[in-house]
């Protein structure tokens, strides 16, 4: 199964994604994407680590080249991985020196395919940042353009697409196999 969990900033999408992943398998991996750049990013990372504590996730750090990530083989019957998040990964690929630049969204999409091949279930978290009414710089426009394409391709491939608002799920797509959710 592939799930795409989207939401605004601080919408509760991570907590929802964790719950979803925990329902799917007891062998759990968490793919963390944020690079520690300053105290603020360190605080965000610490908050997420605290939130995951005791939930049985093994954390892997990967801020670039998801397509090249080789994970340990599955130990139990089913494994779930939680990728958090596609939008941070896109920022990394676009702006870090070794990133995929104008081919970032394609690189991340093949990275997601690579992850899918290595587990039973995959939950991908991404951001909704497409309704700002202020004038955008060309860089912001490029980021939104690539994130929009990435989200649309992920949504098309996903069995489940959920938008989280204030911690509450809005289901945009739900495969018949998931009726029990």
């Amino acid at each position, binding site marked *: 199964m592939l799930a795409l969990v989207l939401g*605004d900033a601080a919408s509760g999408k991570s907590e929802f994604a964790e719950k979803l992943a925990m329902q799917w398998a007891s062998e759990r991996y968490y793919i963390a994407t944020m690079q520690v750049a300053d105290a603020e990013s360190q605080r965000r990372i610490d908050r997420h680590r605290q939130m995951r504590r005791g939930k049985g996730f093994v954390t892997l750090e990967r801020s670039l080249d998801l397509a090249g990530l080789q994970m340990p083989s599955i130990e139990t019957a089913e494994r779930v991985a939680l990728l958090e998040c596609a939008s941070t990964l896109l920022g990394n690929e676009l702006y870090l020196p070794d990133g995929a630049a104008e081919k970032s969204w394609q690189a991340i999409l093949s990275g997601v395919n690579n992850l899918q091949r290595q587990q039973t279930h995959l939950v991908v978290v991404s951001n909704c940042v497409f*309704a700002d009414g202020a*004038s955008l710089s060309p860089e912001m426009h490029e980021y939104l353009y690539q994130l929009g*394409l990435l989200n649309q391709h992920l*949504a098309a491939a996903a069995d489940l697409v959920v938008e989280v608002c204030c911690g509450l799920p809005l289901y945009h797509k739900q495969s018949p196999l998931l009726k029990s959710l």
Partner: protein
Amino acid sequence: MILVIGGSQQGKLNWVMQNFGYTPEQVLNGRDLALQPEQSLPLAGFKVINHLESLLGNALKQGWQSDELLALQTSLLQLPEDFVVICNSVGGGLVPVERFDREWRELVGRTCCALAAEASQVWRIFCGLPQRLK
């Protein structure tokens, strides 16, 4: 008239063309229109207005007054049953710093509410996935 809204980069236009069977030639792009207040919308041959938010933004830049903007809204409300208006949602960010941006997003939001009230169908496209609101 049918209203289709959603954030930018969500696949709204693709969905409209697939769902309603319209071609790119039938799409009038609001980004290309900078109408003077006395001009009416050049609608002949078109079935879709894309980027209503830009059409409205361009009208504001051309100095349209509120009564002129209201007349434009009235003409949009009178569009044929099978005509689709697509508009980017632009009210989801912080209050913009620039006065123009504030007036623009207010105008876009209010216009969409007025169109939605009269539309036969209202759709929101999210990640390429349609959700019918009306």
